[in-house]
Structures are given as structure tokens and as C-alpha cells.
């Protein structure tokens, strides 16, 4: 899932400062699940922005909507009915959603209300952690199912650096050493010997070599 985090309120507020009527759009997919841009957060942000304007003696009208997905044009299309009456759009979806709205409605300013963070999993209620960097060439099969690219602070592919201690990364005691986890997993799987195989320098082209990536399925077009 893509995770995101709400931007500081004053950043959002200053974006929309010149406007009196905004369309605030949430997304019912990833950002709902990570509690950053679902219906509840839309309503919270809407209230907060209105209160900020009240403080400034202004009146801000907010049209709240939450789309099933902001990254699909068909869903975004449903905003067409409302776009004319508003001065600006604030999207609480990930960067994809913001861009999709901007693409469709070129005539109005679109602002992001969240910072899109990473592809992650929820560790437990209220905690999400990065798990994948979308490198385009998955090597999890070599590392016991734990990704060193996403989870090692140095993206080391051949084992831990010398700085880890007690299974934690040198960066912070809150961060697990990915290679420690990989090693433990390898032991559990009885494939310790595979560790000593050198993973050669990675071909990063699938990640960012060819500009924005695309997946095309001819059969579905």
C-alpha cells in the first residue's frame, strides 16, 4: 500500500489562502487505510481549514468529496460536476491522485494535502513501515523475503555494515537492521550458505533508468 501523511496545516492553509471556495477530495484506497486522506481525514481537514479562515476573519467554503480511487480517470471524472464552482482543489490522495485531478481539470489549481511517503505495510495498529521501493527488479527471493533495498538504510545488498548492534540499525535503535533480519531468516530457512554468494551490482534501469515507468498489457487495452 502507498502510505502518506498529512502535510502541516499551515502549508495547506497558505496554498489556499487566496481562495474562498475549495474542493477537498479524499481517496478511499491507500490513504484511507493509512489514515491520511480518507473520508474522516477529509472532514477533519475541512473543519480545520475552515477554523483557520475563521481566525483570519474569512469564510472558507469547502466541498468535501471522497472518491473510490483518485488514480482512475473514471472516478476523477465525477468531480466535473463540482469543479466549476470552486477556486481550487485540494487532494488528500497520494501524488498519483493529485496528478490525475490536475490532468483532468487543467483550469484550476490543484494542491496536495498529504506527503506521499512510501510503499509500506502496517506493523500494527497505527504504525506503517516502508517495505518496498519499487526497484522494478525484485530480489526478495535472494534475501529470504526481506528487502535490503527498502529496509537497509544504506541499501546494502551484501550484508550488514559494521554499525548495527543488537539487531538494530546504526541510524536509530527504532530501526531494525534489515540484514540482521535477513540473516535470522536465512538461518531459520537453513540457507545460511547462500549468504556468501555475492549479489552483484544492481541494474537500476527497471527502477529509474528509463524515465517514468509504464506497464502495458496489450490484452487489456
Amino acid at each position: 500500500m502507498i502510505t502518506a501523511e498529512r502535510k502541516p496545516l499551515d502549508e495547506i492553509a497558505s496554498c489556499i489562502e487566496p481562495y474562498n471556495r475549495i474542493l477537498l477530495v479524499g481517496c478511499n484506497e491507500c490513504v484511507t487505510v493509512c489514515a491520511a486522506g480518507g473520508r474522516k481525514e477529509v472532514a477533519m481537514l475541512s473543519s480545520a481549514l475552515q477554523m483557520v479562515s475563521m481566525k483570519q476573519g474569512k469564510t472558507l467554503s469547502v466541498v468535501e468529496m471522497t472518491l473510490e480511487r483518485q488514480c482512475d480517470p473514471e472516478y476523477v471524472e465525477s468531480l466535473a460536476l463540482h469543479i466549476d464552482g470552486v477556486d481550487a482543489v485540494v487532494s488528500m490522495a497520494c501524488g498519483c491522485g493529485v496528478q490525475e485531478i490536475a490532468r483532468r481539470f487543467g483550469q484550476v489549481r490543484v494542491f496536495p494535502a498529504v506527503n506521499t511517503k512510501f510503499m509500506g505495510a502496517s506493523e500494527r495498529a497505527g504504525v506503517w513501515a516502508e517495505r518496498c521501493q519499487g526497484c522494478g527488479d525484485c530480489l526478495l527471493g535472494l534475501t529470504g523475503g526481506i528487502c535490503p533495498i527498502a529496509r537497509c538504510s544504506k541499501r546494502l545488498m551484501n550484508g550488514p555494515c559494521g554499525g548495527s548492534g543488537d539487531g538494530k540499525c546504526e541510524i536509530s535503535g527504532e530501526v531494525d537492521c534489515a540484514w540482521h533480519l535477513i540473516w535470522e531468516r536465512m538461518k531459520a530457512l537453513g540457507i545460511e550458505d547462500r549468504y556468501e554468494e555475492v549479489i552483484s551490482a544492481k541494474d537500476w534501469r527497471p527502477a529509474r533508468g528509463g524515465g517514468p515507468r509504464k506497464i502495458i498489457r496489450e490484452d487489456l487495452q
Partner: protein
Amino acid sequence: MKANRPSDHHAVLIIGGGIGGIKAALDLSEARKDVILIDKSPAIGGVLTQLDRTFPTNNCDICTLSPNLSAGARQKHIDLMPLTQLTGVEGEAGNFTITLTTAPRYIDTEKCTACGLCLDKFPKYIRFTPGLDHRAPTCMRYPRVTPHAFSVKRDQCSDFETLASVCPAGAIIQGDKAKTRQLHVGAIIVAVGADVFSPEALDNYGYGKLPNVVTSLEYERIMSASGPTFGELQRPSDGCQPRRVAWIQCAGSRGQNKGEVSYCSSVCCMFALKEAIVTKERFKEDIETTIFYMDMRTFGKDYEMYYQRAKEDYHVRLKRCRPHSIIPADPDGALKISYVEDGFGTLEDETYDMVVLATGFRPSAESTGLAKVLGIELNDHCYARTGSFNPVATSRPGIYACGVFEAPKDIPETLVQASASACLAGKHLLPAATADSTEPVYPPEKDITGELPRIGVFVCDCGQNISGTVDVPDVVNYAGLLPHVVVSRSVGYGCSRESLDIIRKTIADKKLNRVVIGGCSPRTHESLFQDTLMQAGLNKYMLEIANIRDQNAWVHADRPEDATRKAKELIRMASAGVVESHPLIDHILELNQSALVIGGGVSGMNAALELAEQNYTVYLAEQAGELGGLARQIHRTIDGSDVPTYLSGLMGEVRAHKNIEVILNAVLVDHEGLPGMFKTGFQIAPQMYYRQIEHGVTILAVGAAPNRVDDYLLDKHEAVCTQMELGNLIHTAPDKVSDWENVVMIQCVGSRTPDNPNCSRICCQAAIKNALWLLDSNPDLNIYILYRDMRTYGFLEDYYLEARRRGVIFVRYTPESPPVVEAGGAGVHVTFNEPMLGMKLMVVADCLALSTGFKSDDESTEDLAKIFHLTRTGDGYFLEDHTKLKPVDMSVPGFFVAGTAHSPKNIGESITQAHAAAGRAITVLSRNLINMGASVAQVDKERCATCLVCVRACPYDVPFINEDRYSEIDPSKCHGCGTCASECPAQAIQLTRFEDRPMMAKLEGLLERKL
């Protein structure tokens, strides 16, 4: 009223429609047993209907009683027969044949609408006179009467035709005749109460001659909003507000003179304190209140604290003496009281504007006759004779007595006895009789789909309770202007039957689909109004109650304008909220029909046995290794009954009963679940294995601990012991006792102290019991009882008198100068003030017995309270749900308290409460289903993002992601806390009754955003 009863065979007859009879009837009907409730009067309600406010919360009783009456009259299982008397009983327990005679009413209660036309035209002919002559309180009936109909005074009526023609409903029946019926019942409960003593017989107080001498009940009426002066305090002679009021206690009780009775009426001390406090509350410094008393008998739960509040917070003056006489002080009506204050010896005079005589109870004139008809014995005071170990059982099996008919007592004790007698009476009914019972039937619910909201607003004035502060007409007018409000009106006491009828009719007439009540707390009255909605064919959740009494009028009494404005806001909020209501269905679950009784003492065993007898499975958990509890250390009661024999019989019955499982050495560790489906975990010693018990209800009978003090050389000198230890000694070492010359007893040791502020209730009787017992074996013994107030309430006063007669010396001491005890060889030297002689005395005592009473075991009750989420009083006893009206129910539904876990009690009282707890438990257990209410979380599958927040947030692990890939919440498992709803990031979950829309609408209504 119940019509077409298929069979009366297995009903219980209840005689007397006072609070005791009503409570017994309600309990039995809740337990789905049939009841015939008769009262000789045209209406039920008894003495309570005349009280203004009751202690210790100073609530108005009308408010608390009305729901019971309204519900009582409507219960399917209750056949209410006013103007009816019992004229014959034959047969035996389980199969009595009774003869009932109903006097003619001359008015058809089914037709009469109480429009009042007949009363207007012929006030003399008609009973039900809300005009209320305050001098004749016993013939008054409060205005919201059940049954809601007039009756004709035939002997006064000379022109029946004309009278009958007045009635538009044709309800007046000239030829009405007395009817006699024979019916079959399984058991009989007598709850006829007693009369209130009329002090005309006392010539020294001038009652009946001096207009400003009134009885406490009359004073109550004067203060009552529904009374003759509409709540204005006016003295009868000239209608002026008095500045000095005196109460004289024990008027007609505890006396030997003409017209007096020797026993104590038990309730008068609290009655006087309450009246003095209420008076001070209303008039503060404008009035002075003085109570003349002999002993202040505040022995009930937390009553001592109430007494202290009267003294300290309200500055009620207290004079310990029995005034000699009342004579007129001036022609305007002032009164002079002459008295000799205890300990001073000089005659004093004081002048008052008004004097209130605290008159007690007298056995009613009908008692003797009734007892004859019933074939039951009365005691020397003409009250019902009952057993020491079963204070509600009369001498004839199957016939029970409760309330003041058994002995003078207050409301909570009456209710405890009522529940107890209901429990015991229920035993005589065949189980078959309850099996086919039906629940109340309501008309089919109207489909309101697609209708626009049509709201009816009904505002209670609650006597003066609301209207005294809030401008009700203003609020009503305002509410009428709110959106969607079709009708807005005031309804007096909204919870009275009359008002409920109005509400029901209005719903029909105005085609309302939503109702707002402005009244008291929904906590207490919601179900009543919901019932009314259902009767009107509306879903019960189309209701909002604005709490304009408890949370407005009562707390803003000093700011009427603000209170009126707030009442408008609260009603606006409720009406905005109710617009968003929609019909809901309650969720019903199966109930576990077994009980857990915690505590294997006398209370616990009695509760267990009663439940087992009525075929419920009982788990009796006791922490000790044996049953019996504190009673193992008691050998006899004050009336000489043999405790060990009783106890061993009881233990044998409990152990042998097939429906009881006794679990000894059981230590409570955890608890979960809902009423009807609890799970409680114990660790069982000595191996400490864990056992979880599933049960439907819980009765807490953990008792209290005998108090022990570090004072008066207790545990330091062998001559010093507690009363309980003295009892043991008399029993086990009679030789030793017979050698003694002097015994001293000190009362209130470790009770009524800052540390343990309440009265331990049982110590005065225990001291007298031991004193009499000592004198039996050693008649020459000198016994000194050093006391603060002798609290031998009710008939215990007989033993107090006997002790005095047999030479026990009673000497009063004050906490400021307590007795001094020093070691002196084999005995102790006790030095104390003798107030009559005004000098110090020293007694060389062979034995010093300390009345140490009870103290709750703070640590263990706290532990239980934590585990069960129950509330305790400041001194560590369990707090009942309502001190007056629900004395054995606890604040958590499904929990009941019995015995000394509730407050100090003697064995008989503990047993009664145990029976009451069992009876209350049966009201739950007899149902086989539990209503979980309609508050459940519901998922909008279109919105659900399957984020698992609800799955993780639910404290009961109810939500799950189903095969259709959205979160599903099983309504039968949902506890309705709403945590998932407030955490759902997709706003896909709504807690019914508390959805976003009504919650937001309420906010908007309250804060006037849309108006």
C-alpha cells in the same frame, strides 16, 4: 388492566397498594408471575404519595414513584383491584382459595377519563380532591392517581341522576354494587402498612387545638408542590412564613403515657432531619430549625452522615430532651415549648412559629381483622408476627408480610422486604404457571418510511422541580417554533399515567413520528417513554429526552433565566437530533439462567437456596474453606433464637441441594461479559487452579468484617473483649461469667468516628442482648452500658426497656469526653461522666465489652469493585443502584447485593435482603432472552476500505473481513461502545442511535448553526 385471565390458580395475592405492595407486584410481574393487587382505597400509592422529598438524596418521590405506578398499572401480569378487601382464605400454601369483596365505585374506570366535570359540579359527592385539606392528609390522594379515575362517595350523594347526567363519558353507574369473587392463589403477601399516628390523644402538645402544631406528614404536605399551599411554606394560623420551626421527636412513640406506644417508629428521626434540611435548603438563614429528640436514631446506611450534614452544613439545632408541653405564646399563633435539656436540669422555654410533631406508626385498625381472616398471628404490638430467621414469613405458610405491617421501617427496608416476600411467594407457584406467560403486546409498528419528520415536544414541569426554575410556558412556545415540530405542550408530571396517555393520544391525533421529552434524566426514564411510543405504534427509538431537570433545573436553580434558556437549547438539540432518528430493532440473545453467589455466609446461602428452590442453577463461591461466615461466631439473637442450630440446618440444606454447587476456597480473579451472560474466573485454593463460571446474574454477599480497634486496652488486657467475644464467653464459659460482679459495655467503639463515620447499627442490640443474657445466668451482676444514642429501633425498644427494668445502667457519653479505661489487676478501671449526677464515676469491671461493630474490608471490597466495575460508598460498602427504590440492585445490571456487604445488618435483616436479592435476580433469570438494545455498529460496505482499523480497535474482537471483502460486525456480539465507529477512517461504520448524522445534528441544534 389485565383482562380475560385464563387461570388465577397460580397468582400471588398482594394486599395493599402502597410502595411495598407495588414493589412486590412489580418484581413478581417482572419475573413473569401473575399478581392480584388489591387495595381498600380507590387508588394505589400509599403513604409515599404524600411525601414531598425523601432522604438522603432529597429527591421528590412523585418523580421516582410515578414510573413504578404507571408501569404497574399497565403490566400484563398485574390485576389491579382497588376498593377491594379480602374476606376469606382457605386452603394452604400453593393452593389458597380467597374471597375478595370489591366495594362499588359507581364509576366505570374503563370509561372515566378523569375530566373532572363531576368534581366541578358536585365536589361533595366525589372522591379525588386535589384541593387538599392539609389537616386531613390521610384522605388525600396525589393528583396522578392509579387507576386514573374518580369514585363517588355514595353516602354523601343525594342526587345520583343529576350527577350521572354530568358525565360526558357515561361512566357513572348508579346501580353499582359490591362484588364478591372467589379466586385461587398460590401465596399471599400482606403489605397493608400501618396508620400514621394522630397526636390528638396527646394532651400536652395541643395538637388539634393549636393550629400551628402540625404532624410531620402535614408539614410534608405543606412543603409539597402538590400540597394545599402549592409548596409555599405557610403556617396554618395566618399563612405567614414561619421563622422558627421546631420538631418534637417520638410524639406518641417510645412512651408509657396515655395514647403512646412503647416501640420506636424507626423512621421519625430521619424524617425530621430531612424536613429540617429541606427547609434550610429552601430558606437558608431566613429560618431557624430545631429538633428536640431523645436518641438520634440514624442507624441506616449513610444516615449518620446525613445527620452530621444536618448539624454541620445546615446548622440544624439539636436539643436532646423530650419537651414537656406546648402552650400558646401569643394570640398570633406563636408557641412556647418548655423543656429540660438532658444534662442540665433546668426548665427552659423557647418560642416558635410552628411546631412539627414527629409522629410514628400505629397498626391500622384493619390489621386485627385482616389477621383473623388470614389466620396469621400478630405480635403484642399488633404487627405481624414473623420468624427471627425469616422476617417476612408469617405464622401461616404461604403468607408473607412486608413493609410496615411487619414492623415500622423506612422506604428502602420496605422495598427490600417487598422483594424478599415476592421471592418467597413466587416459590409457591407452579413453574407451569410462569411458562406460558406472555410479554406485553404492543400495536404493530407504523411504517414511517418516506414521511417528513413530525415532532411532538412534551415538556414536564415535574411539580416544582422544573417549573420552579424554568419558565415552562416560554420553553413550550419556543419549542413550537422549531423546525418539524408539529405540537409542543407541557404535560405536568410527564411520567404520570395521565401524561403518558396524553402523549400517546397526541402521537395518534397529530400523526407524530418523532417525540421529544423535556424532563428528567433518560437514564431513569427513557424506557418508560419508549414504552409509551411503542404503545402508540412508534418505534421506541424515535425519541429524544432533553434532560432539563437533573442537568438543568436542579443545577441552575439560582439562575432561572439561564436555566430557561438552557432548557430551550437542550430541547432544540434533542429535536434536531430526533429528526435524524430512524426505527431500530433490538438485538436479543439467549440468557444463561444460572446465578453466581459470592460469599457463603448466611446471606449468600439464603440467596442461593431461594434461587435453587426455584430451579435455577447456583454457584456459591466462598473464599473461606467452609460455609457459614460471621454467623459461626454468633450463638443467639436478641429474641433468644438459636443461631448454631439454624446455621447448621441451613448449611446442610445448601450442601444437599441438587441445584447448588458450593465452591470453597474460591478467590475471584477476573470477570467479563454482559448481564445474562457473565463469565467470572476464580482461583481455587489450595492448588490455586483457575475456574471460570458462566452465569446470568451475580449476587454479592461478601459481608463485612467485624471491626477491631486499638483502643480501650483491647488485645492488651484479658478483661477487655468485643461484644461478639463476650457472646462466645457467655456460651462457652458460663462459670466464669457467673463470678463477675461488674460488667461495663462501651458503645460506638470504632463507629461514628471520623475514621469510620457511619453507625454500625447492630451494636446497641448486641449490647442489650448480651446484657440480658448475662443477667439470665447472673441476676446480681451490675451492668453499665456507656452509649451515645441508644438505637434500638422498632420493637428492639422492648429489649431496651426490659434491660432498664432489670437494672442495667445506661450512661450517656459524648465523643468529646469518652470513658477512660486503665488496667487494674484482673479487671479494668473504667471512669466516665454521669451526666445526670454531673460527676465522674469509676467502675472496677471484671469484663469490659466493646461494641466495635462492623467495618468493610476496604481492600477486598475495592478489589471486587474493580473487577466487577461496581461502585462503593466512601466507607467501602457496595453502593446500590438507587438508595430508595433499588436497594438491592447494583449500578451494573445483573448484579445484586445482599447482607452486610451492603451495610451493617443483623441476621434477620441480612436474610431478608438475601431473599430480596434472590427475588431481584429471578426477575432477570426468569427471562430466557436478553435484550442487548439497538446500539450496534453497522458497516456501510460501499464505504468500507477493509483497512482493519475496526478489527484492531474492537475491545471484543467482533469485526472481521468477510468473504465479500468488507468488514462485518455481528450485531449479537457487538457491545455497542462505538470505538470502531469513531476510528473508522472511511466513515464507513455507524453506531446506531449515535450515528454521525444525529450527533452532528445535535451539535448544530445546540449551537444553533442551522437555525
